């Protein structure tokens, strides 16, 4: 079994990361009834016996002593990380995994990436190496950060390029939180576009998530729970709707939104942690969903978002789950994949779902989904037998779809509006090593990416004939 290391950078990254660890512990507690440190647990946690003098690492098979998260927490101000260390998760992290500073990045990508990036380079690399050394077989780094701020976006993308340098063979999956149009950080378009360039160059896969979509989903859930029809009761214990039953007792404002992203990470790794009839490992995700190196933005959608404890015919509910995965309300960015072009799609199913259910739904939904001409049957499927807590089954869909193009175009527009006026530019140019060319290069990288999606979109309506086959001389 392989291990993964989570690197959480900045305020957003650390808050989401915190929810993730909380939910991961809960999920494993639910499944692992005998208190043994098994392979599944070891993918995200180390087992440490603090009484031993050599650092105390315990191997798989023994009883759980002390679980330590395989994580590196980075933030350039102390509030969030210290909050985590005061909270109930303090046992799960030790001080060697943390990197903090005092003054923050001032919502400035250049400060995060260049100033702190060079100042803390060695320290970061050491901590990453340490985390990697604890792993038997490191498969993947999960990087979590926001795009709009300074630390997450600047230092986070610096960490990304360090990961590529130091661990070129290890997969890098980035969960990036994109700012919505009404973001309160004025320089977020600059930060996002500068970070995008790094993501396009150095990440293996990016899972873009938009705050506005999370807000809409959370509102929908609370509407359902208030408005429930008579006879319809929402099950409260599911991991998506609430962190209840987890380690932290009270729910803070962004918690519900962060829960959803945390679930995304849990579900992506479920098939490599637990048994199933059709396993899907993390390295298979990049291999199947990234047809061209730069087009690695995968739109996630999670269903079901809430569980109704009423008497519904199980099959219909299962089929509904599949339909929902493609509806625009369940996507984690503001996009409508059904009306754009699919390059590839992965369906990761958890719970008691068999291959016939999967096939039936794929056949049912396929006609309404436009796929690119050279990948007409391009589905990657995975079946994991362990469902998430509180649900009988769940589905995570990852779509490499041109519907990210409008999101990126909007981002580019917001960037250009500021850049044309050279607004706030001096804050960036003051930083050592930051040149104006960085801005123009980032802009052209983004434009080139949009062009590539545009080319593919253009093929959508056209009927592309089969490529002429090789002819054999007889």
């Amino acid at each position, binding site marked *: *079994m*392989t291990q993964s290391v989570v690197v959480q950078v900045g305020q957003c990254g650390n808050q989401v990361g915190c929810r993730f660890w909380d939910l991961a512990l809960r999920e494993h507690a639910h499944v692992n009834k005998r208190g043994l440190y098994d*392979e599944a647990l070891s993918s995200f946690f180390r087992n440490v016996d603090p009484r031993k003098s050599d650092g105390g690492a315990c191997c798989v098979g023994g009883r759980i002593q002390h679980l330590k998260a395989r994580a590196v927490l980075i933030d350039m101000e102390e509030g969030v990380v210290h909050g985590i260390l005061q909270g109930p998760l303090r046992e799960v992290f030790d001080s060697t995994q943390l990197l903090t500073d005092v003054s923050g990045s001032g919502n400035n990508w250049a400060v995060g990436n260049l100033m702190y990036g060079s100042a803390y380079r060695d320290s970061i690399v050491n901590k990453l190496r340490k985390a990697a050394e604890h792993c*038997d*077989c490191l*498969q993947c780094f999960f990087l979590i950060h926001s795009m709009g701020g300074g630390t997450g976006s600047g230092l986070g993308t610096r960490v990304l390029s360090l990961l590529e340098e130091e661990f070129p063979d290890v997969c890098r999956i980035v969960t990036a939180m994109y700012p919505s149009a009404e973001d309160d950080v004025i320089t977020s378009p600059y930060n996002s576009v500068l970070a995008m360039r790094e993501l396009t160059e150095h990440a293996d896969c990016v899972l873009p998530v938009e705050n506005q979509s999370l807000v809409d989903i959370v509102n929908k859930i609370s509407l359902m729970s208030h408005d429930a029809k008579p006879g319809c009761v929402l099950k409260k214990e599911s991991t998506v709707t609430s962190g209840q039953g987890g380690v932290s007792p009270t729910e803070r404002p962004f918690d519900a939104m962060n829960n959803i992203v945390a679930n995304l990470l849990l579900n992506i790794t479920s098939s490599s942690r637990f*048994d199933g*009839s*059709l*396993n899907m*490992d993390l*390295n*298979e995700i*990049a*291999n*199947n*969903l*990234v*047809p*061209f*190196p730069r087009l690695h933005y995968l739109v996630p959608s999670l269903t079901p978002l809430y569980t109704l404890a009423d008497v519904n015919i199980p099959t219909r509910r299962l089929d509904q789950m599949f339909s929902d995965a493609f509806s625009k309300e369940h996507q984690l960015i503001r996009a409508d994949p059904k009306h754009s072009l699919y*390059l*590839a799609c*992965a369906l990761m199913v958890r719970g008691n779902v*068999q*291959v*016939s*259910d999967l*096939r039936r739904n*794929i*056949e049912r939904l*396929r006609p309404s989904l436009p796929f690119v*001409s*050279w*990948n*007409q*049957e*391009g*589905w*990657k*499927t995975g*079946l994991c037998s362990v469902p998430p807590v509180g649900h009988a089954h769940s589905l995570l869909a990852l779509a490499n779809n041109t519907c990210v193009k409008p999101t990126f175009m909007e981002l580019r527009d917001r960037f250009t509006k500021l850049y044309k006026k050279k607004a706030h530019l001096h804050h960036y140019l003051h930083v050592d090593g930051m040149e104006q060319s960085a801005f123009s290069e980032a802009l052209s990288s983004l434009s080139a990416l949009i062009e590539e999606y545009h080319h593919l979109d253009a093929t959508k309506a056209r009927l592309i004939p*089969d*490529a002429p*086959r*090789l*002819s*054999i001389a*007889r």
Partner: protein
Amino acid sequence: MSVVTVQLGQCGNQVGQELFDVMCSDARDVHRKTYSAVSCERFFRQTTQGALEARAVLIDMEPKVINHSMSKAAKSGRWRYGETSHFSQKQGSGNNWANGYCVLGPRHRDAVEELVRREVEHCDMLAGFIPIMSVAGGTGSGVGTFITQCLRDVYPSSFVLNHLTWPYGTGEVIVQNYNSVLTLAHLYQLSDAILVHENDIVHKICSQLLKIKQISFSDINRVIAHQLGGVLQPTLTPASCGAYSRHPIGELMSALACHPEYKLLSVCTIPQMASSSIAFSTFSWPALLKHLRQMLISNSKMEGGIDWQVCPPPASAGRSRSLSAGSFNTSLANLLILRGKDVYSAETGGFEDPAIYTSWLPPDEALSLWKSPVPFNKYEKSATLVSNSQALLRPLDDMVRKAWNMFASRAYIHQYVKFGISEEDFLDSFTSLEQVISSYSELQ
């Protein structure tokens, strides 16, 4: 004579476990001592405590499936896998043929060859190897192809019969067509014959004949195991002179693999029905064989929805065959295996009709007939047909067409190139398979 099975990847290990299960129950439940003894000797070895251990080597690049298969076998109580007969790593092949073939295969070659050698040493006489794998993923296809090559190098005079599972047409893995094309092109050079099961067809058997509502991969694997068992369990062959044949794989090869350009074998079995219905059905050889013959020539793999309109074209008409015209399936050679009551009185003339065969083999050489008076797997009478015919032509062509379309846009190629194969290698594989398609299309 013993057969060593090499189970590769998730599919190979899951199918293999079901196969040994079927063969063990068949050998054990049947009250014919010679049959049981031959079957056990062929696929199992006896430990000093009298337990049956499968003559199998289990290989996968990640441990979960092997652990599952081994514990499932041990739970059955009747047989198990050898404690040390498996090899796994921590991280899979990522659905990448090039990763399996160029990196992981060579890296673990010594360990795997050692396991195979140990298993071969337990055999008094080696009948041959059966690697079991899928073509869609990375380990079964890539590592499987590499291991087949190793078997060829180390045991040049042994037979190698590859069993392949072809994935659902509508995708289990997005790059499945690339992996399939690369595997088939290489195996064509390495393997003596390639026996194929298609997930789509087996799925239909489960839903329409076996009436299973929620079909799982275990159901699919059990059907494959039943069909394979029908081929591999002991039989009396023309060459074996009244005793159970001791060269099952060799005789299968000489029956069917008569030309190096024609190596694709398909299987169909009759009857196949829900086990609850078997007790209420009566079978007669004429009916079974009539259906089976029509299944062969109309290229239908199951006895539901057979197209009875298809018949061999009259001998006088010029036979120009193209892929789209006509649904008549021409055979190169057929192996008919009959098991159960009254086998000796079964009339198999329908399969000797020269019209169903290509013109360059006389029908009495094209048809081979094996019999066993022992009923197989609860069916009082059953027939298995292994066929070297145009049956796989259409699925093969579809697979190559989809892979070629993807290749034309160079999608995913960077994922393969980074592990060590080039666009040239892809082109070579495509060329080989177009050759195979052309050969089969022109059978007349």
